[in-house]
């Protein structure tokens, strides 16, 4: 505008866009694990980390191998997986159903939202004795605990997702004379699916936590029981072997949800 801008050297405009769009290259996450484990291994081997603080990763692997060879791995894993599957499935499906109802019907909403808000902050583990009285010491009380624990976060995520479905799409459905049922099935549910799935991610992590808690309180076999046995003997190698199995379980479940999202939500690009 003035003459001194004309005289001065042209300066390239500084780039200030970029960022805020995290991608996740596959190898990064993997190498974080590798580096961390290698560091612990070197630390424990060299004595820099005392063996009382952390077990050697190679010993943990050996404990894992023992578990495998004795055929105990599946003996512990099978009941845990079935508890997780049954309890989680009951909790998630009832949770989605109730969440959708809260999203659709005024009276259900008015009646249940305060109730869910009251139940949500209760640590469900505290209720295990109650479930044992109600459902017995066997599997049923474990299913109930896991189901109850996954139920509340699923409900909250689901009705939030239903509330967020684009109203203009629902109006469109009505304007074309679609039945109520069709609108729910073809517009509301697919529209709420992203929110429901991301809620499910959290619910399933909670399910794993509760699984271990339930098994610690009374189970012969199960990952939780295995960890408890190892812990009471201060057998850190086996304790860590159990913890690693839980982590892997969590990673596998979250990968499965990721795959489901990829399939069901391909339209989101």
């Amino acid at each position, binding site marked *: 505008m003035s003459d001194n801008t004309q005289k001065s050297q042209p300066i390239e405009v500084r780039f200030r866009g970029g960022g805020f769009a995290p991608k996740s290259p596959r190898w990064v996450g993997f190498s974080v694990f590798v580096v961390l484990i290698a560091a612990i291994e070197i630390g424990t081997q060299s004595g820099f980390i005392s063996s009382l603080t952390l077990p050697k990763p190679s010993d943990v692997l050996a404990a894992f191998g023992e578990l495998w060879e004795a055929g105990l791995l599946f003996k512990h894993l099978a009941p845990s997986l079935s508890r997780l599957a049954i309890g989680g499935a009951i909790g998630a499906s009832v949770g989605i159903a109730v969440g959708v109802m809260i999203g659709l019907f005024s009276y259900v909403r008015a009646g249940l939202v305060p109730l869910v808000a009251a139940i949500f902050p209760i640590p469900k583990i505290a209720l295990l004795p109650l479930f044992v009285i109600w459902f017995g010491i066997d599997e049923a009380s474990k299913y109930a605990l896991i189901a109850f624990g996954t139920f509340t976060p699923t409900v909250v995520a689901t009705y939030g997702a239903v509330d967020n479905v684009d109203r*203009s799409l629902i*109006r469109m459905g009505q304007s*074309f*004379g*679609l*039945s109520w049922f069709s609108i729910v099935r*073809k517009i509301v549910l*697919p529209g709420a699916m992203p929110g429901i799935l991301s809620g499910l991610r959290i619910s399933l992590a909670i399910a794993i936590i509760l699984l271990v808690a339930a098994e610690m309180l009374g189970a012969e076999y199960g990952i939780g029981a295995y960890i408890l046995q190892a812990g009471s003997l201060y057998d850190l190698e086996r304790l860590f072997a159990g913890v690693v199995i839980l982590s892997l379980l969590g990673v596998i479940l979250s990968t499965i949800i990721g795959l489901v999202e990829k399939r069901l*939500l391909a*339209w989101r690009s």
Partner: protein
Amino acid sequence: MDIRLDAISHAYGETEVLRDISLEIPTGRIVCLVGPSGCGKSTLLRLIGGLERATQGRVLQLGTPPADCLNPLTYIFQDFALLPWRSVRGNVSLVLEDHGIRGARADAIIDDVLARTKLSDFSSALPRQLSGGMKQRVAIARALSVNPAVMLMDEPLSALDSQTRELLMDDLVALWTRQPFTAVYVTHNLAEAVRLGHRIVVLSRRPGEIRELVEIDKPLGERGYGDSDLEAIQKHLWDLMREEARAADEELLDV
């Protein structure tokens, strides 16, 4: 099938939005609604299509819609309202499924409407892959598939750039010329109004009342971009709207 608005008034709580609107929408004609922002055009359209109930007055259908008409009063929305998880084809078939039209019968209808809107090559594309103009053509195809007796269009071209708008206006004129349809067309673009409207209804600022009815006799097919007689009508409409728009603008500032 004609539509008659019989002394419609509407209020949202304390806010009076429409006052004493009486209007005929004759078969095979396009009626344009123009008026300043917030005067209740969209509200009136929702009342006509039965998406909302007027506080006073009635919307009447005169005569019965043709037998092959699946959804007599059909909207075309400004924001397209396409389901992002369904393909172009799926979006059209959505509105047929509920009428029990599936399989070969549905395919025939879908192929026909996609051809009429020049979308045949995109039938399996998802909405996010389409440009704005194409999305609105999908919405038009969807509306055509149910054989509407009356099309209710709320600023259907407002989200598009002006070149695309011209092209789509030509498409609409071509569709109408091939098979005249009845339409209520809401717009704030006066050029669209004089190009597509047989009858133009000018609403006052809120509460919306009918300020003036302008009839344009020139056939749609003969109207072109920048016709001088249309320009004259457009100028007249603009003069009517200008004071209303200015007053409406100042009113909003008071709130």
